[in-house]
């Protein structure tokens, strides 16, 4: 349908001009937009931002979980956070973990999604299998991993030894524990990335491929390069941000498998926060760890979003 005619008609009918073409919006548009977004905004404030504000306030106190009194200590908690060697170790570990898990998950997730969609047979089967780790209850999986990674009687080391490959004390050796947790993180999350990429692939209109073929993009690789990957742009941005976030916020695997050990080798920020607040009952201090954590994550994510939104090709 041709646009200019309908626009003239619309104006004659008095309807507001389409806002998406950059024209100035009218009041009714604003009202429409805020009506649509209103409930979400209200709920975001009540369920996310007010609680976060509460955490900021608690971070300025010395409140102990369950105590009936507290007192304000200003920035004392924050000073302690930055001086604490354990916190710095935790921060470094978290960054290292993210640096391994994010590329690993995205590359594998995308590769598996492409492989599955590139053929006709057994798609449902392959999709389901690769999504299993994401669906399984973490505690059970962690228990299974712990048994598999046992230094002597575990299946992993037994297989490696059988093949003549070197073995290691995977979960208890400081140099291997973080990479192993990262590998488990990738194992868990690649199904998540895969499903999102599948949804993205399914949304690419067929005509684009036909057009590309007509333009001479015969090879599979060409089509990948000229159509698929650019069209996956918005999804890719999303997957990158969300997987990075999940990686930053890893907590369950650490809690069940290593509790941050050996020493502080596998300690990660969210676990530190949880332990300070709920195990050591130093909720004021735990809240300040939370604040520092949030500031880092917010900065990183907004930067990511800024950079990618500009590069991503929308319609």
């Amino acid at each position, binding site marked *: 349908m041709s646009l200019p005619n309908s626009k003239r008609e619309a104006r004659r009918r008095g*309807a507001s001009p*389409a806002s*998406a073409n950059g024209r100035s*919006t009218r009041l009714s548009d604003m009202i*429409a*937009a*805020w009506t*649509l*977004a209103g409930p*979400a*905004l209200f709920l*975001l404030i*009540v*369920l*996310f931002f007010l*609680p*976060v504000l*509460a955490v900021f306030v608690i971070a300025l106190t010395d409140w102990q979980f369950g105590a009936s009194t507290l007192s304000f200590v200003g920035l004392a908690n924050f000073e302690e956070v930055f001086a604490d060697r354990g916190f710095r170790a935790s921060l470094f570990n978290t960054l290292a973990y993210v640096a391994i898990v994010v590329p690993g998950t995205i590359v594998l997730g995308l590769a598996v999604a*492409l*492989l*599955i*969609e*590139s053929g*006709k*047979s*057994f798609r*449902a089967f*392959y999709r389901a299998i*690769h999504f*299993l*780790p994401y*669906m*399984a*209850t973490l*505690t*059970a999986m962690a228990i299974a991993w712990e*048994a598999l990674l046992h230094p002597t009687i575990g*299946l992993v080391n037994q297989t490696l030894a059988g093949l003549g490959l070197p073995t290691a004390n995977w979960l208890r050796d400081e140099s291997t524990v973080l990479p192993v947790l990262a590998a488990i993180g990738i194992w868990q999350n690649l199904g998540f990335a895969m499903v999102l990429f*599948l*949804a993205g*692939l*399914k*949304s*690419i209109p*067929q005509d684009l491929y036909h057009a590309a073929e007509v333009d001479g993009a015969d090879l*599979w690789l060409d089509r990948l390069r000229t159509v698929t990957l650019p069209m996956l742009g*918005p999804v890719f941005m*999303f997957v990158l*941000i*969300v997987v990075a*976030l999940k990686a930053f*916020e890893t907590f369950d695997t650490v809690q069940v498998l290593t509790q941050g050990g050996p020493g502080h080798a596998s300690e990660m920020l*969210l676990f530190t*926060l949880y332990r300070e*607040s709920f195990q050591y009952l130093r909720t004021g201090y735990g809240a300040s760890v939370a604040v520092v954590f*949030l500031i880092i994550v917010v900065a990183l*994510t*907004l930067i990511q979003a800024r950079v990618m939104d500009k590069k991503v090709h*929308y*319609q």
Partner: protein
Amino acid sequence: MMTRTFPAPTAIFRHAALLVTAALILAPFVWMVSLSIKPPGEIFRASFSFWPEQFYGIENYTKAITKVPVLRYMLNGVIVCASILALQIAVCAPAAYALAKLEFAGRDLFFALVLIALLLPQEVLALPLFILGYKIGILNSYAALIFPYVVSPFGIFLFRQFFKTIPDDVVHAARLDGYSELGIVWKIMIPMALPAIVAFGIFSVVSHWNSLFWPLIAVQDQNLMPAPLGLMSFRSEEAGSDYGPLMAAATLVLAPLIMVFMVAQKWMVEGLAAGAVK
């Protein structure tokens, strides 16, 4: 209509690669199912076999169901997950549409707020939310399990990305055809972004089905607890775990999710047919 989109690397390569990854992925699950059919005496032997000498599956699964009301917990999971998902879509889709297709003052700020909310992990928010729930008086009820999740920044963000790929012309045309903005959301955007909606549904259901962190805080009544609690009852840090029924319970808890996924997959595929209007 499938194969034309991706002329494959050869079928053999495809299957080979996927089977390798599948095998690596499946290892712990094979272990889990194997433990769920073994008697306690065979669980940690130095030698490995999938199949036990003495088949103990019936005992383990029976114990998993009877010692703790796992089926009841799963029913709770169904109620809670379905409610959460319905509310999430109702709240998030309109907001995402506004972000994706409308221009209005404060839009960028709103999007930034959504992103920031996305970053806030529940471990951080749990305690204030607990106090909030207490003040409203809904603790220890299904509502307590549902209310923190009613708005999903993840959902808003995901829908926004997918809605943005729908051409503006479609929206213009719909307006001219007399659709209200809300009508556009339900009748145009959601059907055309169905793969994303279904994907979101899968993630939402899976994450709330398996989540224990918030339920342990918000609810004391065992009759309201979700499925993973059934597992935890077989685990003790001090005295060691009862592995057979634990893994049996884990398998039982996983089964409905697999079924949901198999069904949902089809919608993701068929969604393309409905959205072929593009």
